[in-house]
């Protein structure tokens, strides 16, 4: 009990400190017709598309299912590689098949959770990395001209990380027998969503 309180106190202090450090930056969170886009806009961008949300939550779920070290390796790989893809998109570097890859990501990751796939860590990280590039590139090319990058980037990355954390939190139910089944069902739902988006991408319709 004492250890729990000490840990809770430490987490609480850390969160308060981080909030105090980052809160002043929200003073710049304003949007004027695409000219200046701040933290709030960056934060809402990753959650603006269901295909993105499903994939990022699925990464967290799969990591939790695989256990340590994947539970933190996968959510570390995704934001970094996604940002690399975003950088490429911002710089105008073209990559083929991005929309297909994004649609495939929800299908593949959801299926991996459903099947409780347990590849080697480097393979799982590679799969996550490939999809992360696609997601990041799509975000990077969607950003309007004249936008301010710093606060937007901070909001963007934090939102992505929180989606992974949500996936991990959901994924922790696999410790219990009923939770394990529920998690697999959740993976199936994500995969079905991926099928829908894949169909949309193949048929050329806007998602």
């Amino acid at each position, binding site marked *: 009990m004492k250890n729990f309180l000490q840990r809770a106190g*430490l987490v609480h202090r850390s969160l308060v400190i981080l909030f105090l450090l980052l809160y002043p930056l929200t*003073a710049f969170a304003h949007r004027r017709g695409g000219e200046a886009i701040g933290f709030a806009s960056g934060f809402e961008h990753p959650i603006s598309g269901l295909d993105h949300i499903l994939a990022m939550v699925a990464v967290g779920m799969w990591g939790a299912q695989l256990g340590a070290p994947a539970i*933190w390796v996968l959510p570390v790989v995704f934001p970094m590689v996604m*940002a690399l893809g*975003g950088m490429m998109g911002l*710089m105008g570097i073209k990559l083929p098949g991005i929309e297909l890859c994004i649609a495939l990501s929800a299908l593949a990751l959801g299926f991996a959770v459903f099947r409780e796939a347990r590849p080697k860590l480097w393979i799982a990280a590679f799969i996550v990395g490939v999809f992360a590039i696609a997601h990041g590139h799509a975000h990077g090319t969607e950003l309007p001209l004249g936008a301010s*990058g710093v606060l937007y980037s901070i909001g963007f990355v934090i939102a992505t*990380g929180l989606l992974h954390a949500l996936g991990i939190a959901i994924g922790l139910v696999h410790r219990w027998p009923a939770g394990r089944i529920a998690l697999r069902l959740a993976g199936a739902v994500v995969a079905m969503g991926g099928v829908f988006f894949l169909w949309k991408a193949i048929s050329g319709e806007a998602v």
Partner: protein
Amino acid sequence: MNTGFGPFYDGLTHLFVTPEDLLPVIALALLAGLRGPRFGRAVLFALPAAWLVGSAAGLLLAPQVTLPVAETIVTIALGALLAASCPLPIAAVVGLAILLGLLHGSLNGSELPKTTSYGQISAAGVAVALFVVVSLLAGQAASVRVPWTRVAVRVAGSWIVAIGLLMLGWAMRAPG
């Protein structure tokens, strides 16, 4: 940054509303803290001191200079070291603190007014803010013992890398 309370408070708040300066400081402070209290104490004094020296150099020597790509690369590097929890020796960590302080201090200093004492007082405010931030973050990081909390600190480093990569993309963005 004009708070209306004078140059010291302008400098004090500058760090907290300038993410380009704040992010690498957060990364370095957490890195030092993860390495241990001795590292944290070293950075606690090395970073503000180097920043002051850099500010003085910027005030005395340079016209206004901006180096967004260099700043971003430093941010990415520090975030990567934090994410990897690199077991650097204390001399290397202090070296990084000095490098960061000199770079950002000189860039800050080059933007300050050179004809009055505003710049020097403002730089002192920045140094105090650095001292506070490093003491809080390095102290917190040094006190974590539970493995998952250390992992969380390293994850923060990966987020800083990701933010830096996006910032680099912005800085090198293709026109049109």
